């Protein structure tokens, strides 16, 4: 109970099935005020279903969602009023201007009439579109649309901002502008739930990250804690030409190598403590069995952790 009062978002035991297929199983996490929380997972992992339940579009089979002390199931209007939701698609009227779109959302969220004008101007300034406010949305660039898409979720000053892939298809300049803006919002005390295919974005702005796979949270923690899950081991990717199976067997016996797997016909992945220093030994171990045609050493990072936990890259 204390948690639900302290945290901006508390969700517990969220589950959702479609027929016999489990889309989300027992997902739970909390987000504190001023905290940015990342949700990472490959396509089909259950991120969108989780978000649909958090914003009230889907009714969970089990579990609870409490936003700013309001239970989404028993007091949906109060809970929804505390959430700003930025969908992945540009969910705005393309034939209305940026200003008209923002006014529409002000009215939809029930802002008092006298506040609408001022709040629209504030948000236009915040997203840097004051000078294009009276142009129709279908004349905006992709980046401008993304910015106004985010702006529409900020009009009612939500306690929790939920963003689903907010930078898809955006040029680097706009991406930087969006991320800078989000960091300012978090610094001002807004809670953030962020999903993205761009690992570097999540690493940059999220304080804590949950890795979701097959509908469940498989790991959760700060970036440092997650990287620690796979240890400080480096990942060595080898491309071999020759007797790959024999080479693999030899590499498994090499001191310092904790894991050796064949990834494709001619490729082998090694996980090794201080792997970058082990390279000469690796090459001499396979000498005469297979020729090393390519080698890559990857230091531990979130991408490596994600790969280790889900078996796939984020863009798979």
């Amino acid at each position, binding site marked *: 109970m204390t948690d639900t009062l302290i945290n901006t978002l508390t969700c517990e035991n969220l589950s959702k099935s479609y027929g016999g297929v489990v889309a989300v199983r027992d997902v739970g996490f909390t987000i504190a005020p001023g905290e940015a929380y990342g949700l990472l997972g490959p396509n089909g992992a259950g991120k969108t279903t989780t978000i649909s339940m958090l914003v009230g579009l889907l009714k969970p089979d089990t579990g609870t969602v409490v936003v700013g002390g309001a239970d989404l199931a028993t007091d*949906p209007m109060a809970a929804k*009023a505390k959430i700003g*939701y930025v969908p992945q698609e540009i969910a705005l*009227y393309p034939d209305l201007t940026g200003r008209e779109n923002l006014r*529409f959302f002000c*009215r939809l969220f029930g802002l008092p009439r006298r506040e609408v004008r001022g709040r629209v101007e504030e948000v236009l300034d915040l997203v840097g579109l004051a000078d294009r406010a009276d142009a129709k949305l279908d004349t905006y660039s992709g980046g401008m649309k993304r910015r106004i898409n985010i702006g529409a979720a900020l009009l009612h000053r939500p306690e929790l901002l939920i963003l689903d892939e907010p930078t898809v298809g955006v040029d680097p300049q706009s991406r930087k502008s969006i991320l800078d803006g989000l960091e300012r919002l978090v610094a001002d005390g807004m809670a953030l739930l962020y999903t993205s295919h761009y690992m570097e974005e999540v690493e940059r702005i999220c304080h804590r990250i949950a890795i979701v796979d097959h509908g469940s949270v498989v790991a959760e923690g700060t970036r440092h804690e997650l990287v620690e899950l796979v240890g400080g081991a480096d990942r060595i990717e080898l491309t071999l030409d020759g007797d790959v199976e024999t080479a693999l067997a030899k590499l498994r016996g090499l001191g310092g190598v904790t894991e050796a797997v064949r990834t494709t016909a001619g490729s082998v992945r090694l996980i090794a403590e201080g792997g970058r220093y082990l390279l000469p030994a690796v090459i001499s171990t396979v000498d005469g069995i297979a020729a090393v045609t390519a080698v890559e050493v990857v230091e531990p990072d979130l991408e490596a952790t994600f790969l280790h936990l889900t078996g796939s890259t984020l863009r798979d």
Partner: protein
Amino acid sequence: MRPHPVLALVAANLRRHSRDRVGLFFIVVMPFVSIVFVGMALGGGAAASRLPVGVVAQESDPVAAAVLAELRAHPDLEITSVGGEEELRAGVRGGALAAGVVIPPGSTTFELVMTQSSGSGMAARSAVDVSVGRVAAVIEATRAATSAGATPAQAAELVRKAQAASADVEVVNSDTASGTPRGFAYTAPANLLLFTFINSMAVAAALVESRRIGMLPRAFTAPVRRGAVLFGEALSRFIVAAAQAVLIMVVSSLLFGVSWGEPFGVAAVVGVFALVATGAAILMGSLVRSSAQPSAIGPPLGIVLGMLGGCLWPAEAAGQTLTAIGHLFPHAWGMDALLTLSRPGTGLGDVLPEVAVLGLMAAVLLSLSLVLFSRRTRTL
């Protein structure tokens, strides 16, 4: 003061429609182009035109002369003398004449020629019955006076006095059918139904677009009841349909002098038909995937329903089978009601069955479409 989210949705949707130039052309200009050209082709004129009735008779015969005089005096009939029976039958068969009357010399038994399925023929028959009845009454009154001992001159004088007295009797509510109106009086209601339906279907494109871009799911994440969002979307479409109907009524009244009839009756018919069109638009907006589909499917569908419902040509020209099929759809009921109301002395009470059927169709369509629409917008 907090604005109502339903009004926010309606305002946004109407603003979007007002910026669709092609859509505006089809709402503001196209109906009147159709009313003018089809109306002129059907004889122009705002009032119900007179029914052409051919007569084969010798005017030297006193009974024939009396009947002809009555027929010519009837306000709904246009009497044409025809040379012979064959020519008369050919005229009726070909549709040039609504009906024909053959009056043999020296006989009081007349032959009425008409086609069974013709509404105009039925209307002409009714008018002919009235005229012939008046002559029969005079003959019968003269016979009665003569039987009572009056001389032919006295009998004629008595009958003349009786006729003069009966002229003081005012018929305030005649249920004599006047047949299908022609000209603008026909094309204005026909195009009202046609374009209200077609343009409602076409504006469903905006609904599909809102669904496709995720605008509606996003609206559902606001602190607004799901029903309010659905109601806002439905109300937007109803306003477009009703505005289309009102525009056609006002402009056709002012420019073409079309008389629509008793206002409550017309409002009821147009209101329920606009609800039917709204239901059809939401159904379309729920079923199709692309925003290009409503404008591709809507007009042909609307035209076919209009054909079956008598919006493109009088239902009587379509024959009984097509007319019966047409009554499976709303346009036929709308046409029946609006044409009934265009006749003098009719009102809401005369079109209650049509209003009830249209109301039922609207209820079914709206319920079905809103359930479907709600399901289609449930997830992200």
